[in-house]
Structures are given as C-alpha cells and as structure tokens.
C-alpha cells in the first residue's frame, strides 16, 4: 500500500544519514558538558581518529546522567570527573578499571561587586560561609553532576546546610554548566564552575573569578571502559584503544596542548 512505501521512504531518508558511518569503526563516549563545552574534544579527538582510524562519538550530559547512560550500556567508555562515583561504578561491576586522565580546578565565581566580600580568599569553605551569612544569591547546578556533587561536598565542609537555610538566596537551576553560568550571569550570582568551561564561556557579564587555588577545588577526570560482562556489545578493543591513547604520552601531550585564550585548561596526570 502507498502508506507503507512512504514509511519506508522516510526511514530510508534517516538511514541515509546513518549509513555514512555504518562501515567505519566508531566508539561512543559518555562524558560531561564541561569537557565538551570547553572545546577539549574538538581538539583532541581528531588526533586520535587520525592515528587509530576510530571515530569517536561524544554524548555530553551531566555526570550523573553520563554514569547512568554507561550503566545502561548506551556507551562504550565513560569519562567524567567525580572519583567517588567512578569508583562505585567499577566496584558495582559496570566498569572494568578506572584510570586517571587529567585534572583542572574549580573556581568560585561571583559578581564583580562581591557583596559577600570573598575576593582574593584562598579558603573556599570560608568563602561559602560568608556567602551564606550575607545571604548572597548563589546559583547551583542542582543536577547531580560532578560539579554539583563537589559543590555540595564543599557546603558540607563549610558546615552550611543549604537545604534548610538556602531559602531565598540558594538557587538550584537543574541545568548544565553553561546554562547555569547563563543564569548566574543574569542573576549576578555566585557560582562554582570548572575553570575550563568558565574560560571558554562567552557570556560572563559582570562575573569574575573571586576565589581559587584551594586544594579542595582540585578536579580530577577519570576514564573507564564499560564492562563487557554486563554489556557484551561494548566495543572492547576500540574502547581500550582510546583509553590507552588517552593515557599515553601522545594523548597526554595533546591534552596539555589544548589552550583557550593562551591558557591551558586541562593538566594531564595519567599514571604510567
């Protein structure tokens, strides 16, 4: 019947878009918005694809979502930045082994006017306490991402219970880093962000980095192969090829070479 022919035509149109990649070797990475938005992948993946012939598809979502995605077997490799979650991921059998890849740091950003007066401080928990005391507007990721978990950990360390005392000034945006930064920019709010996303961000408005350098703002990235025992379809050989390259001298050098506005954003620290 005519309808069936039309349906097949429509799917063929879509398949046409798929088909181009059917013959290639591809792997899929579940990663975070910070690595994607900063532009890191755009810089390092072509180098890997050239040497290996493997195309890498990146699905960039929040850390929580990336981990759940990998748990469901919808990706071959996981690359996020929240070590406790990553360790649990491996321990529960979803991942094979966790490797350090690179680090950068988080920075505490706020309005240039700085109503909570935290500028120049080196103690992030003290700064957070001042923000809570001043009831200055703070924008949180609120999305169960690595950054969000880090932020919540810092509030706990500062002994501030944002759930009960947050009220008017603590705003959970439930969004990715970029969207949250847009919100912070619009609200002239304080916000915790990874440095890479911030440097590459183009809508800074009236915001600036106010507190940095605290050891606790260290941000470690880890890479894990999804466990083929749980998901037999995982591309083990090609996934491992990527992990090996990423932690190799060549991969690490490529990461270090990535600069935005002259600044290096990610610092390789794979153990070899």
């Amino acid at each position, binding site marked *: 019947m*005519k*309808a*069936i*022919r*039309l*349906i097949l*035509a*429509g*799917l063929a*149109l*879509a*398949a*046409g*878009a*798929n088909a181009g*990649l059917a013959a290639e070797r591809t792997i*899929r990475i579940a990663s975070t*918005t910070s690595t994607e*938005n900063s532009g890191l*992948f*755009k810089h390092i993946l072509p180098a890997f694809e050239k040497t290996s012939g493997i195309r890498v*598809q*990146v*699905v*960039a*979502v929040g850390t929580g979502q990336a981990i759940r995605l990998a*748990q*469901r*077997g*919808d990706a071959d490799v996981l690359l996020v930045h929240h070590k406790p979650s990553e360790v649990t991921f491996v321990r529960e059998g979803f991942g094979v082994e966790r490797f350090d890849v690179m680090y950068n740091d988080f920075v505490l950003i706020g309005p240039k006017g700085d109503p909570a007066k935290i500028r120049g401080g080196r103690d992030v928990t003290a700064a957070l306490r001042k923000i809570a005391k001043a009831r200055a507007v703070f924008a949180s990721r609120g999305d169960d991402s690595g950054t969000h978990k880090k932020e919540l950990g810092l509030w706990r360390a500062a002994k501030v219970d944002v759930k009960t005392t947050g009220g008017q000034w603590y705003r959970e945006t439930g*969004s*990715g*880093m*970029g*969207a949250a*930064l*847009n919100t912070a*920019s619009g609200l002239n709010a304080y916000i915790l962000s990874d440095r890479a996303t911030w440097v*590459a*961000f*183009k*809508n*800074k408005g009236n915001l600036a980095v106010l507190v940095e350098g605290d050891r606790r703002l260290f941000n470690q990235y880890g890479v894990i192969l999804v466990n083929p025992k749980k*998901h037999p*379809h995982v591309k083990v050989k090609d996934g491992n090829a990527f992990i090996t390259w990423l932690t190799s001298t060549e991969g690490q050098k490529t990461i270090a070479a990535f600069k935005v506005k002259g600044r290096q954003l990610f610092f390789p620290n794979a153990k070899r």
Partner: protein
Amino acid sequence: MVVVANAFGEALHLLTSFDAELMGIIGLSLQVSLGALVVAAAIGLPFGAALALYEFPGRRPIAVFLNALMGLPPVVVGLFVYLALSRAGPFGFFELLFTPTAMVIAQTILITPIIAALTRQLTEDLWREYGEQLRSLGSGAGRAIPTLLWDGRYALVTVLLAGLGRAMAEVGAVIIVGGNIAGYTRVMTTTIALETSKGNLSLALGLGIVLMLLALIVTAAAYLVRETAVRQLG
C-alpha cells in the same frame, strides 16, 4: 539588545560563509524532520481520514485523545523513546539510540497526532460536503478516503506544514535520543541549545534566524505550489 543586533550580523556571516559544518547541520535538520514528516503523513493521513469516516465504538474518545496528543511535550517523547531504544530497554538490540533514525522516530511520534487530528477535522468537513454525492455514486467510506484527501490537498499542505514546523522547531526530543553528537546527530535546534550553554548568545540567536529563514523558505515554496495549482484547477 546588543546581542540581538549582533545576531543579525552573525546570521549574515553564517549564511554567506557556507561553513561546511553549518551546511551539514542544516542538511541533517531537514533530513530528520522531513523524514519524520513522510512517515507521520503516511500514518496520520489515512488514520485521520478513517477516524472521520468510519463509525465504531470508542470513536469519540479516540478523537479527543488524539487532539490531546497534539500537546505532547517533546522532552517527554524523547525520554520515552530513549528508554525504549536504550540498550537496557526493549528495543536496544536495534542499536538505534544516538542515531539520526532515533531522532526521526521521536519526531514522527511527536507530529503524527497533529497530522492525524487535523486530517480528521478536514475529512469530516469534506465528507459533510461530498458525502451524499459520493455515496449516491456508490462509494463507501473506505473508497472515499483517497478521493477526499486528494480533493482536500490544498488544506492538507497546511496540515503538513504544521507538522513539519513542529518537528523543525523542537529540541527536547532530538537532544535526548540523538545525544547532540558533533558531526552526527547535531541539528539546528540542538546547536542553538549548545551555543547558548556556551554563552555564545549572538551566535545562538543568529542560528535561530537562519532556522527561521529555512522555515520561511519551505513555507513560501509550499504556498507557491499551492497558488499555481489553485489558479489552474480551481
């Protein structure tokens, strides 16, 4: 408002530079949404017409339900399709998640109710006009479906454009089932979302202008086709 002013400059730059990446993104947007339109029309046109012409128990509630489905939130459709196509889901072995086909599937689900509901209304009106004469000539409801759809073809163009517009404008469904993968499942709306999240507001708005121009071209083309045909065939 500086952002808005800059956006027009960005749009102009985008259009004249013929950037390969942008061309690819536009091409994929059209492929996905047009593909979804074709499938949605193949299902929705006969279904909507049949719903108008056949009497059967439950006909009224189905029509009401169909009208309600026009308001399906794209992000809900996206989530539903994601769960279905995920490796951990019932259709995982098709390996369709994060591919353009998944995006076509999601958009088809999204726009079929629109096409079916509007076709149903159109067919009902047409049957009121033609029904007695067609029955007198010996045509049953089933035989009348293609005749009515063809006779209502000008109004149907508007119905199809409504479906296409909904598909091209949505981002919630395609971003979840497609994953916004660079060079593979990135379309106009997801690119706008991405650039917005990177703070590139002028570029994002410029892309928005390009997208609306695209919609304008498609609509104008459909209008021209319709006008020439109407002039010829009355």
